[in-house]
């Protein structure tokens, strides 16, 4: 792929900042969902860890950031780092318990952990605020930029964190470790036979993915200064999977496309008809699954090939 393509999504994101007007908070929620979907791509897409429990990590990070801001320190970056770290630890512990399983069993176990965590948060009313959620205030980013009404700080802050995580994800995927994950996804038995410590590799990628999802949750909490039980809900796990499938798995950029299209379409559809907008989302998903096996990224690929042919006259591939 031509390196220039890599700049495109980031340039678009920056251009959006200057042209968004009142859409910035929508933009921020897109960035948060991109980060969550990206984290799922690492676990589900690359390592083949079938999970419906990523909301557990998203919510863990969100509550981590909120509780840290309320009880310890209102500095956003510090809170983000702490929330990310505790989520990673939580993932290592739960990962050790469940990652020896595969397929439907694994799916059920990830689901169970997410449901247990959501119920625990519901019961721990004094800590989490239960169904009322937690409202809190954040300090300025780096002590300089306060979260403003227009959501400018929130957008740029989220964009920078997303970029950092994207670089990490890129490095991970293209490292020998990332290649071994590819192998593990295709056949755990063979990888074991050539001496790969499969279990530890899976725990490692699970932890990295969870840390990323935790960051997404923390960003969501910090930029809205509110965290509720819905961050732990099944819907979050489901939406992340939908966005990933929509955009295209194992592409990294698929997360960008899937999350952006999902949120924008939902926003438009819900505005045009606040009652039946879910039909549009459902239709879009069905069309994607039926006609585009590789998700919306396939549309981009087709477009790129077409463009190249147009520029060069003919295309040998």
């Amino acid at each position, binding site marked *: 792929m031509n390196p220039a393509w890599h700049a495109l999504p980031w340039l678009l994101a920056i251009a959006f900042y200057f042209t968004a*007007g*009142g*859409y910035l*908070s*929508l933009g921020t*929620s897109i960035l948060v969902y991109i980060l969550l979907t990206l984290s799922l791509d690492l676990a589900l897409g690359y390592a083949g860890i079938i999970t419906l429990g990523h909301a557990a990590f998203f919510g863990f990070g969100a509550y981590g950031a909120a509780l840290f801001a309320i009880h310890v320190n209102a500095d956003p970056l510090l809170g983000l780092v702490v929330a990310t770290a505790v989520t990673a630890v939580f993932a290592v512990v739960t990962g050790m318990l469940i990652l020896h399983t595969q397929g439907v069993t694994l799916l059920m176990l990830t689901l169970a952990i997410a449901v247990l965590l959501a*119920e625990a948060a*519901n*019961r721990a*009313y004094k800590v989490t605020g*239960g*169904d*009322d*959620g937690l*409202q809190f*205030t954040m300090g300025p980013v780096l002590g300089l930029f306060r979260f403003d*009404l*227009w*959501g400018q700080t929130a957008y740029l802050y989220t964009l920078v964190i997303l970029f950092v995580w994207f670089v990490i994800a890129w490095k991970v995927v293209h490292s020998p470790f990332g290649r071994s994950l590819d192998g593990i996804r295709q056949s755990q038995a063979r990888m074991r036979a050539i001496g790969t410590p499969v279990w530890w590799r899976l725990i490692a990628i699970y932890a990295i993915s969870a840390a990323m999802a935790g960051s997404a949750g923390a960003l*969501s909490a910090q930029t*809205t*200064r*509110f*965290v*509720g039980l*819905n*961050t732990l809900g099944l819907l979050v796990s489901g939406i992340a999977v939908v966005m990933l499938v929509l955009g295209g798995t194992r592409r990294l950029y698929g997360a960008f496309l899937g999350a952006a299209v999902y949120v924008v*379409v939902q926003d*438009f*559809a*819900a*505005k*045009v008809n*606040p*009652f*039946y*907008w*879910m*039909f*549009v989302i459902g*239709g*879009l998903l069905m*069309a994607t699954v039926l006609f585009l096996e590789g998700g919306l990224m396939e549309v981009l690929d087709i477009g790129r090939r077409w463009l190249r042919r147009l520029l060069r006259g003919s295309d040998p591939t």
Partner: protein
Amino acid sequence: MRRILLGLGAAIAMLVLPGLAAAETVKVGVIGVFSGGFARWGEQFKQAIEVFQKHHGKVVNGNTIEIILRDAGGPDPAKARQLAEELILREKVQFLAGFAFTPNAMAVAELITEAKMPTVIFNAATAVITRRSPYFVRVSFTLPQVSAPIAVWAPKNGIKKVVTVVSDYAPGHDSEQTFIKVFKANGGEILESIRIPLSTTDFAPFFERVLQQKPDAMFMFGPGGPPSVAMINTWASRLKPAGIQLVTTNETQAIDLPKIGRAAIDAIGSSNFTEIIDTPLNKRLRADMTAMFGPDQVPDVATVGTYDGLQLIYMTVAKLGPRPNPDDVMKFWTSGLKWESPRGPIAIDPKERDIIQGVHLRRVKEVDGKLINVDFEIVPDVKDPWKEENK
């Protein structure tokens, strides 16, 4: 694809049209729940808006009132906040309104304070909400407001020992605390207080504990809809035969009674709106609801909340014009406003920006084969007792 294209077309039209319209348009952003499991709240908002527009039109002194509906999809505070931001910054609304759920209303408090956005609460009933921002005003009710009068009435009428059972979230706590305090002050005794998680579907184990305590009555607060229906059914099958009465607040509304069925008979309630209220406006509202939406459609608490919220906004535009200064609006709203609601006369407490209204104590009865709430006492001009307690 067609739907998406239609959506895009409509979206483009929405971006272009405001530029063409020259007359002053007052925009009111209504955040409600229009999809998913709690859509019945949104349904009530929508029906009330349509009936109100039929009664009063869409134009006030030549200014068109445009109502923009936004769907929060359920108790989703982050979404509510995002929608409020968009309505304020992008749609440039003059008023925010709606809010079925307390968490959604709480989530926008900081935002509306910073943006100076006059906001009318159509439903959310936790007492503390209006204290969270000086730009809130509430036209629905508060839970302490409907829980206190019944706690005064009960000890005088043979109910001396009570077990309270409430949903474990802010409105439930509000209801429980108020009931206990007032009930004890009037000589009642609380045997036990049980809090049930919001997601509970099987209430039998909890009610079994109530049965063992042998109280005169159970005071109950549920989240409305199916869980409340299940709670009343469980009461009817386990506790009613043992002679334990049921005391609730809004649980036996006319809108839910057909779903609860005969199990609801003899349940005692306390509400700011009862279907048999004999005001001309209530009769007109009922008749139009049936005519416009079908014979099963009856007005409920959120319907009158929305209706009165719009009355307030129309009054404000009539008085202050289409582009009022937010602080003038708040001054107007805290000037001791009184008006006629379908539920009878209501007023806004100038100090707390909360509603003052009559509370109806009633009992479910079967009259001519139909279940209705029959008032046995109306307590006039009830202020929110929580605010009196927490000055």
